[in-house]
């Protein structure tokens, strides 16, 4: 067991974890933060995307011990008093159906907009290539990211 110190959605935690424990399982099974789902086991789908020190990571591909000292933001901690512009935009543009990919899609989009506050549609599509959605055909997701960009989501 290894001791880790992480901040998740603004709350500090100290835990003893197995070195092999995946960050996503630490979030879900140890902390009970089930807003971050698991969609695959090969880091292809991106459903488990969270922000680690502001950068998007697939939390199935990060060990909990690698998050030592890090600040993690999950979908549960993205709203700051009110919904994040991406959360609002995903609802407004109907950018989700079953919603399973949505947490990862929103956090990947947050990272994308931080790098490029005003992306073209093509840049949005390329930027979200690592996040799979089986319901929407992506059209409304692209529109939602565009809307959030216009609303200043990169701030």
């Amino acid at each position, binding site marked *: 067991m290894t001791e880790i110190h992480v901040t998740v959605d603004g709350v500090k935690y100290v835990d003893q974890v197995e070195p092999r424990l995946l960050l996503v399982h630490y979030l879900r099974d140890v902390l009970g933060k089930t807003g971050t*789902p698991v969609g695959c086991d090969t880091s292809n789908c991106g459903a488990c995307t969270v922000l680690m020190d502001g950068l998007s990571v697939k939390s199935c591909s990060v060990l909990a011990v690698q998050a030592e000292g890090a600040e993690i933001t999950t979908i549960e901690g993205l*709203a700051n008093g009110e919904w994040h512009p991406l959360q609002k935009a995903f609802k407004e543009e109907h950018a989700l*159906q079953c919603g399973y990919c949505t947490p990862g899609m929103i956090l990947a989009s947050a990272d994308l907009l931080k790098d490029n506050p005003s992306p073209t549609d093509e840049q949005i599509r390329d930027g979200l*290539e690592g996040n799979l959605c089986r319901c929407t055909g992506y*059209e409304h997701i692209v529109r939602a990211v565009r809307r959030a960009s216009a609303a200043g989501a990169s701030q």
Partner: protein
Amino acid sequence: MTTTEQPPAAELGRARRRKEDARLVTGQTNWTDNITMPGMLHMAFVRSPYAHAKITSVDVSAALELPGVVAAFCGADLADEQGSLPCAWPVTPDIVIPAHPPMAVDEVRYVGEAVAAVIARDRYTAADAIASVDVTYEALEPVLDIRDALEEGSPKVHEAGNKSYEWVFANGDMDAAFADAPVVIERQYRQQRLIPCAMEPRSVVSAWVGDEVTLWSATQIPHVLRFAIAAFFGIPEQDIRVIAPDVGGGFGSKLQVTAEEVLAVLISRKVGRPVKWTESRSEGNMTVHHGRDQWQRIKIAADSDGRLRGLQVDLLADMGAYLMLVTPGVPLLGAFMFPAIYKMDAYSFKCTGVFTTKMPTDAYRGAGRPEATFAIERIMDELAAELGIDPLEVRERNWIKHEEFPFTTICGLTYDSGNYEAATERAKELLGYDQLRAEQAERNARGDSVRLGIGASTYTEMCGLAPSRVLGSLAYGAGGWEHASIRMLPTGKVEVVTGSSAHGQGHETAWSQIVADQLGVPFEDIRVLHGDTAVSHKGMDTYGSRSLAVGGMALVSACDKVIEKGKLVAAHMMEANASDIEFASGRFQVRGDPEQGRAIQEVALATFAAHDLPEGFEPSLDSDATYDPENFSFQHGTHLCAAEVDTETGMVTIRSYVAVDDIGKVVNPLIVDGQVHGGIAQGIGQALYEEAVYDDAGNLLTTTLADYLVPSAADLPSYITDRTESPSANRLGVKGVGEAGTIASTPAVVNAIVDALRPFGIKDIEMPCSPERVWRAIESASAANTGGGAA
């Protein structure tokens, strides 16, 4: 208490933002895998590495020695109680339905079949322990190709052989249709095997308290599942509660009674503690039922002006190793769809269901209808090419004209409405069809290395499954009705209980819109309850684009009953005759006296108080309705795809995609657009990217999303969508939309690719049309054109 001063705006047709989204965009969703319970254990499966083998021994003793392992079971341990997974669709009287134990006992028939289960305190321990289970096998020969499986001397999947059934249909004089026909075209098309890949992996939690069991499952069919567990596994129905919490997509893949669900119920009873199982994606790709997988031989006879005379279809359909819930019926849903929107003199259909040592197939978005639509829409393009007629022109010469509805097809289906002319005209306009044809001709003329092709698909679909009597006549094991309840709460708010179990479709929003209009209550005052058999005790669940056309109509019927009861109470309150009460916009009024009236909320409160009700009136406005449709609904549309094909690399790029759909009245256009987009994406996935591949030993090679190519945003185009409208015969005028895009888009895309490459003499490319396949097709066509030899 809210009383509505102003009648709410009409909800039907409004792009309401979804009620569901508040929990989905904030991470408060209740997926099955989120559930934890005190004492809950985790289950993991040992799965067969062989496509076909005898199990000679299973030893779980070493696994049981590991810290944290509570129990382990092999098939023999469960043999007395595990029974056989059900097939609800024995399509012919002599169909072979092999026993299908949830856990294999003495023989395995596909890679991934469960042979043992380990139960441990956490998921990591369970996953570790399966490596300590020692299973020995005696390998048998796999059966992998349905084209060889029926030959004499083929290894057998089951003792009874590799043929499950043969189902035939014929109408019209086929000999006359083909005799002296100026044009006869025969093709063989491949419907590759697909993996549904709902984003949420399957997950199950089973918990017993005394003799009652609650099963949470990521399922589309909580009601059917409850019935099946009762009917086939010896647990009294009243002791079973099935809950489908938030479910992350299904597309047919969660329309199943799975081995893992049954084993969770049986094993949690044995160990006396709650048991959870959640699959990994790799496990799911192997063991979630697959879709499609047919060889289609299709032959048409036509006049020289392109008029169809006869159509013959001969299918080989891969059942996989066993028949699951509706496995054998899936191709038969297509049987009625090969003639599509076209008139003809004769039609014959034959389907042979064949066993192989692969994962069973079953319903996947469209279920039989995409396969049929693909074949007919592909061969209509071949007919056009043969005669040198525009592909849309040859379709128009054959389709049912809008003034001919209602029209009974050669299959005996009565299409109630449609307007193929209108949808096609609109699609051509949106695509810029004529300009693109001109550009195509110009690029062909100058031998451009990047060719342009235009593909059409003028699809229809029988959806709104289904009239119970029709299902009965097809030997299906259940009805096709749907149930709804309306509960008028004392404060004037409304609970709507629906038997249709949503998993992404937005029922909570659309159902609120329908009920808001029917009862004249605010959209916000309605809560929709679903997916729990203790709350929604009756239902037929969600598949086959049925929720709105069947479940939506059940809502309307239940609202009618609320209003009828409300009229009696309102009349009593106003000292009027019930026959003089009219109801509109949430208000009961005395005919001819608009001053007098009672809001439905006031009537609800008065009924709750029950102090002064009509003599003999049962104090409740709550109502139930079960709606059984009289007919299918028949949505249709014209999808056009313009694709560019790089003849040097084989790369296909979709340049523009237009979908004009006629789905009748639209409840929520935003939700409809989403359904159409997602459907198109899945159909494009089949055309360009997706295929479940088994190797020669029967190992699935596409177990991960790195190997099985679910398209990403970067792989897909933007879509141009529009609608035409010819209302369906039901009171809401609705048809259904869930499967439309998937049915329509696959042939539109492949037709575009073949259209681009027709100057090279190419008549077909097997799906998925990967760059390699397209490039090889061009190379071999070029070689053939130059009289052989490498290009």
